[in-house]
């Protein structure tokens, strides 16, 4: 992780645009990543951070959120770690609705995790002792996710 960037922010929505700017700037340091993939990563990280901020708000937690960007030769990995405990409810992770399931558009929410899944080449959600870590990976030469 010596080639990585860490950003720690208060769990408040006004920091989201800063997170997007940092991720875009970090990704731009990777010469193998095209503008389209940087944009995909920027959107996905913004969604993960939004969920983390929301989880903190629901619990009234004043702890901060950590965004780690790790640049490797062939990929960029970003991990969004929050301290909202409990994190995901059991089972919630098993059935994240696809974007096109019938009736989904009746709801105004529930698009964040499906968006992350299609935008990132890899997406993993890990429950921590006191929070959640969402890992998003975009490969420099990865398959176009369009």
């Amino acid at each position: 992780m010596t080639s990585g960037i860490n950003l720690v922010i208060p769990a408040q929505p006004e920091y989201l645009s800063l997170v997007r700017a940092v991720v875009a700037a970090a990704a731009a340091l990777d010469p193998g990543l095209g503008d389209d993939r940087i944009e995909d990563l920027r959107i996905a990280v913004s969604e993960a951070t939004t969920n983390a901020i929301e989880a903190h708000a629901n619990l009234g937690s004043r702890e901060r959120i950590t965004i780690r960007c790790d640049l490797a030769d062939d990929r960029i990995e970003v991990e969004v770690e929050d301290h909202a405990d409990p994190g995901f409810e059991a089972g919630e992770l098993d059935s994240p609705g696809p974007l096109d399931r019938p009736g989904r558009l009746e709801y105004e929410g529930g698009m964040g995790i499906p968006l992350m899944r299609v935008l990132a080449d890899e997406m993993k959600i890990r429950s921590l002792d006191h929070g959640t870590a969402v890992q998003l990976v975009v490969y420099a030469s990865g398959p176009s996710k369009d």
Partner: protein
Amino acid sequence: MLAVSSSDAGRWRVLHVRGEIDMATSPTLRQEIIGQIGAGHRNLVVDLAGVDFVDSTGLGVLIGGLKRTRSQGGDMRLSGVTGQLSRVFELTGLDDVFTVIDADQPDGVVGAQP
């Protein structure tokens, strides 16, 4: 930062939005849409030409606006959907749900489909 101004185009109330629509700013847009509907403007065009980023929270506000106008017998349309916006509209299937009108000829297209 999000700024909303409005203008009229026939029976349509056009909301010109500038900035980024995310969790920080989407409540402003939601309030604006609800306020317009409350003031009797059931037919809304949300002009997103000045918007360079929309997240899922912002998409939710737009879906909510569509449902609210329709429940009042009105409608909501979008214009200026380009770049990052067209990408997330496509990925979420919302390009099929919203009527996106041409930003260059808003009156013509809007007027033609009452």
